[in-house]
């Protein structure tokens, strides 16, 4: 896979897609904003106290969340990547579940646990601080990002050659020395990458500040939405969005360098990972944190499910919210039925996943080598574009070209595909990198063209990864809230957006029921992921 260099037409669709639906709308949006306000007006907008407050909020929330995510995620990553123990692959696969949950559902779960009369805060009132405000936002961000840190830490540890560690041991290196020399640096690298992503995702958080704190906690992402949609100042919104992208450029570029450039000597070789030293004092804190994370996670999901299943309509009994949820009132209030929103969610996510996978398959034929950092970074560019910037750009640039409101469904699909693309590409890339070139070469020697050889030999070998990447992109689309909320009109509402609107209509029971529905759909997707791609995820 690394032997074919130079341009090939198979990368063009992906390069074009990223350019047309990621880069171009964002750049034109920024240019439009700056030319509308002019240089002085733009600088003045940036120095607006509320915008500066949003910058500060983004930095504070991003930093606190990243530090907390690393503090929680690193030990879990060590537990997963360093040792062998029974149930490890299941535990590891479970870490993917938070990615599949819509942010709005996690926000609701945190409120259920730590809010007034929450399951946890009623037992431990001191923890009620996590029910709202900055601590609540950080708790939501950690719920998402600690698993991310754990996964990247585990992957980092696994990239450290086991036999290097064994060599250090045979040279007299103590366990601490082995950590410092052999596997620790890889784990730090993974944790740093995870921490940077956690910082970026948290600094761009949208639903958590919106629902748990309000305008005083708005991040730049929420502020851009507010300027564009509430205050109807698209020019200022675009200028703030450009500043936000610049602000997050550095951490994301460092992340890309860490992820795309393997360290010298990386690659697991030989040896076997040690068993978990159950009796050793080193294992206790690891196990304690691991169990706490698992317990917290089960509690969060359980709370959302229980509250959803027993959700009450106004003045009704337990479970009475389900009937009106599918009734005419909701359709009248929101302009779409719950079945319609469910259908939209499934359709948009399915089309977005298909686009991501088709592009991934084409790109897999000519994967950029480790040295082509620029090209690889370009393909991961959508990570640099926040959901609000993306949807704002698509709405500004593409909506008029595609025929106005009738094209909203397409814009939602394109935004979901663009946002899911880096994750789908990464999953496929890792799988294809593990396939020896001899498989394709042997088919080529039988007379197949290189592309046919790729389709016939390599692609079937990575089918589980392909399906997993597709399901992952599907699940991300299903749970996507920020961009979809920005773009959606009543006819093209999805379940997460319907849930948020029901909260706004003071129908918490109905919103709870939708949250439970979303959890069930997400868990079903997880089960499918486990079934077809479990080995890849593990």
């Amino acid at each position: 896979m690394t032997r074919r260099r130079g341009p090939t037409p198979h990368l063009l669709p992906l390069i074009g897609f990223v350019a047309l639906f990621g880069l171009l709308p964002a750049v034109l949006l920024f240019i439009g904003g700056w030319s509308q306000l002019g240089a002085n007006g733009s600088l003045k907008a940036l120095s607006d106290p509320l915008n500066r407050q949003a910058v500060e909020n983004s930095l504070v929330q991003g930093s606190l969340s990243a530090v907390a995510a690393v503090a929680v995620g690193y030990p879990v990553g060590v537990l997963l990547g360093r040792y062998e123990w029974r149930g490890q692959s299941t535990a590891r696969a479970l870490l993917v579940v938070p990615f599949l949950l819509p942010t709005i559902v996690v926000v609701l779960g945190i409120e259920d646990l730590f809010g007034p009369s929450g399951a946890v805060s009623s037992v431990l009132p001191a923890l009620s601080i996590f029910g709202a405000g900055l601590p609540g936002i950080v708790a939501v961000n950690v719920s998402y990002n600690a698993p991310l840190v754990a996964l990247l830490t585990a992957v980092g540890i696994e990239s450290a050659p086991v036999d290097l560690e064994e060599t250090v041991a045979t040279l007299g290196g103590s366990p601490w020395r082995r950590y410092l020399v052999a596997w620790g640096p890889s784990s730090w690298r993974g944790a740093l990458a995870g921490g940077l992503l956690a910082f970026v995702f948290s600094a761009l958080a949208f639903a958590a500040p919106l629902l748990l704190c309000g305008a005083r906690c708005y991040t730049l992402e929420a502020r851009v939405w507010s300027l564009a949609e509430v205050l109807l100042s698209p020019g200022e919104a675009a200028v703030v969005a450009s500043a936000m992208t610049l602000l997050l450029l550095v951490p994301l570029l460092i992340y890309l360098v860490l992820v795309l450039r393997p360290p010298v000597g990386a690659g697991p070789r030989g040896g076997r990972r040690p068993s978990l030293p159950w009796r050793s004092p080193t294992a206790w804190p690891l196990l304690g944190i691991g169990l706490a994370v698992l317990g917290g996670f089960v509690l969060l999901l359980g709370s959302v499910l229980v509250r959803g299943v027993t959700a009450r309509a106004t003045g009704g009994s337990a479970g009475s919210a389900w009937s009106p949820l599918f009734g005419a009132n909701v359709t009248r209030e929101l302009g779409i039925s719950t079945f319609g929103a469910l259908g939209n969610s499934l359709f948009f996510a399915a089309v977005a996943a298909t686009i991501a996978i088709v592009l991934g398959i084409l790109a897999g034929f000519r994967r950029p080598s480790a040295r082509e950092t620029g090209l690889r970074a370009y393909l991961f560019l959508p990570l640099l574009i926040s959901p609000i910037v993306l949807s704002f750009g698509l709405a500004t640039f593409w909506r008029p070209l595609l025929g106005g409101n009738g094209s909203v469904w397409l814009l939602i699909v394109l935004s979901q595909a663009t946002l899911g693309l880096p994750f789908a590409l990464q999953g496929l890339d890792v799988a294809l990198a593990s396939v020896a070139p001899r498989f394709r070469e042997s088919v080529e020697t039988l007379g197949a063209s290189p592309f046919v050889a790729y389709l016939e030999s390599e692609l079937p070998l990575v089918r589980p990864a392909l399906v997993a990447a597709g399901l992952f992109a599907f699940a991300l689309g299903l749970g996507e809230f920020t961009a979809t909320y920005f773009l959606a009109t009543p006819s093209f509402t999805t379940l997460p957006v319907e849930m948020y609107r029901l909260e706004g209509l003071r129908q918490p029971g109905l919103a709870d029921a939708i949250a439970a529905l979303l959890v069930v759909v997400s868990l079903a997707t997880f089960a499918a992921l486990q079934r077809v791609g479990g080995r890849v995820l593990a």
Partner: protein
Amino acid sequence: MPEGLSVRGLAASWDRRPVLSDVSFTVAEGEFVTLMGPNGSGKSTLLRSLVGLEPIDAGEIRLAGRLLNGVPTHRRGIGLLFQEPTLLPRRTVRENVAFGPEIQGIPNAEVDARVDEMLELLHLAPLADRPSHALSGGERQRVALARTLAARPSLVLLDEPFASVDPEIRAELRAEFRSVLRSRGIAVVHVTHDRDEGLFLGDRVLLLSEGRLVQVGPPDEVYQHPRTRAVARFLGYNVTAGTRGARAVHPSDVRLGASGEGLPGRVLASGSVGRGWVAYVDLSNGERWETRGGEDRPRPPAGEAVTVRWTRDVPLQD
């Protein structure tokens, strides 16, 4: 010679499947022992058990009389070289060689002296400041040995260290390793599935089959007198189950005739090997034999009907 390593009744398993059973042997100080056997026979597991990288189910391991059971790897004083040399990334050759003495807390002056000595011994002085990733396969393996020896282990284990080295360098490297290790007077256990390499290097040879030691002895003796079918097959003998019991026949002791006395068969394939030839014959009893000849005997063409006789055989115990 004083006893270096002593292994008694060693048993180990992997995922509850026995990999080693009742393995016992000794290696004297300064002795070079080769551990041979087919793939999957348990060689690498045995080596890893000795150094404490795999848990053992039973038995005891002693080094210079000290019981090593339960002693962590880094306190055993056993050096291990892997098939792929695992040099520390981002460090120079010198820094790699110095690693062991440094973590032992040895004064800097002595560390430098040891490193210089090892670099000289393995002809690495010109490469001392080169980063580890800029070395060839053979150079990397020499650095790995230098680093192991600089830590002054009581026993060195070599896990097929020449397997990933280019063939033209392999022979040279074998001789160099043998000479260096002998000069240091260290006990060595060298694992290989290459019988020529094992027979060439070892003062004694240990044959492992299905997790059990099936034969131990000097290379010549083991080669001339294989005891079991497994050993005979590993050493390249033909094995036949005749009326006098199982027997091993060396390929060079096989004679082919056009007719007459002997086992009937047909030549499957034949070809030149250096100055001689090798042929494979399918016998009418279902066995396939290898036979070798020199320039003094004509090479049989493929497809030819032949009779097979042999001038010498070795009785097998199983």
